[in-house]
């Protein structure tokens, strides 16, 4: 990217006449990504001020912000955010760990794969939301079914990512491990898992996305706190600002946790020799 930017910045004659394209490109990528939402918010704010839309149905950003600030000052907001984040963290971690252990086993032990994989693939065909009634029946309506539902959502992408990653590791590299007398665990730890890492991390990222999706489903099935509760509360009280505020927080936290994950994975997969791996 740097090579695209520098010539324009360095050429003094080109600077005054710079077209909007290059000038936009000069902005840091993070700011560039904010451009669209910020302009939309502005138009929306103006539309509300001109009374083109009914504020009761679509309150302007300023009103949403005010509602959120109010909730923050009473300490309510922090409680809801913490509850949701906590559920996502526990459920996601549980799903990732169980899926990774299972995929490592089915990926390396052929017998286990033939034994378990068909079942896991069949279970995957059930939309995870369809488990909700059963989970409620088994575990009640408190924390357990919520966390388990989130874990289930995160499970499948992680399992598939690691399992297919292990299976696509080059057989020739595994032979190198055999030459050096690595046993099953040695080959798993030193060849299969590192080789499967990119696919595994893609799965983990997908799992995180689903964890956020499922936390809403879980909280909508009845909760006394959390962003999902906030959504329901807004619906009951007919307060669109609360609903929009909760949606905004979901977007913000989903994006932030994903960005953290991507940043953490970039270093781990720097060895890949793929198209635009450096981008």
């Amino acid at each position, binding site marked *: 990217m740097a090579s695209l930017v520098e010539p324009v910045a360095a050429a003094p004659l080109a600077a005054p006449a710079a077209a909007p394209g290059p000038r936009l490109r000069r902005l840091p990528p993070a700011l560039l990504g904010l451009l669209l939402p910020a302009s939309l918010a502005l138009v929306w704010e103006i539309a509300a001020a001109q009374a083109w839309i009914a504020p009761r149905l679509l309150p302007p950003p300023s009103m949403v912000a005010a509602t959120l600030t109010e909730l923050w000052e009473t300490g309510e907001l922090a409680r809801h955010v913490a509850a949701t984040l906590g559920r996502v963290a526990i459920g996601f971690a549980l799903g990732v760990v169980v899926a990774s252990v299972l995929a490592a086993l089915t990926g390396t032990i052929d017998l286990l794969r033939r034994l378990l994989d068909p079942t896991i693939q069949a279970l995957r065909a059930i939309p995870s939301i369809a488990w909700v009634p059963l989970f409620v029946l088994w575990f009640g309506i408190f924390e357990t079914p919520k966390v388990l539902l989130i874990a289930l959502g995160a499970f499948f992408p992680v399992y598939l990512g690691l399992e297919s990653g292990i299976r696509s590791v080059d057989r020739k*590299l595994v032979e190198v491990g055999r030459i050096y007398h690595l046993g099953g665990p040695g080959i798993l730890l*030193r060849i299969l898992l590192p080789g499967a890492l990119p696919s595994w991390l893609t799965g983990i990222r997908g799992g995180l996305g689903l964890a956020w999706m499922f936390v809403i489903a879980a909280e909508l099935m009845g909760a006394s706190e959390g962003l999902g509760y906030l959504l329901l509360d807004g619906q009951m009280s007919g307060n669109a600002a609360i609903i929009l505020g909760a949606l905004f927080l979901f977007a913000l936290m989903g994006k932030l946790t994903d960005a953290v994950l991507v940043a953490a994975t970039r270093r781990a997969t720097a060895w890949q*020799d793929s198209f635009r791996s450096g981008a």
Partner: protein
Amino acid sequence: MLEITGLAKRYDSGTLALAGVDLAISPGRIVAVIGPSGCGKSTFLRLLAGLERPSAGSIRLDGEELAGPSPKIGVVFQEPRLMPWLDVLHNVAFGLPRRLSRHERRALAAQAIERVGLKGFEKALPKQLSGGMAQRCALARALVTRPEVMLLDEPFSALDALLRARLQAELVRIWTEDRPTLLLVTHDLDEAVLLADEIVVLAGNPGTVRTVVENPLPRPREPQRPAFQMLRARLLSALPAYNLAAA
């Protein structure tokens, strides 16, 4: 001493790749294996490496029957087969036993890297290496454990002529230093005459030893010498496939 008796391999597919190979190789010799494509050269090497189980016969190293990969045997494949996620140093250290300390492993790997002329590239990833550098790294990985026997399956065949000549010279230099037994599969007759003390000619379908040719030429060998060319011509006439083509 590497003793191979009655070694045969039939693959599950039914192909009889090797039918009764007998061969005795004294320590410290360079032996080249040549033969037409598909005659079982790679199969032979994979059996010695312990990557395939023999259907019949035995392989003994220093009187001990080999069953599976042995720490006394190092392998260099046709492709470098480096772990793409490890840098050169860690790729070379890959085969060192874990009972050695981190420090010892590092020192040994650094030494092997220097021997193949890759000093300065310890931190490079495989994707940053040229084909020749990657193959040198693979050579260093095989060398670092100081194996008694090194198996090389067409190790330089993917490289251009100039680079091949350089790596051949490096291989000979390394061999003069610690004298491992080298068993080298090649389809390049010049390479066989240049490097080997003894050249095993295989015939295919099924793979058997057709003849073993001693190479009396003193080192360093020069391909333009008449004696070199004569030996090469003798090998050429011993190769069944080339005979057919000439007829």
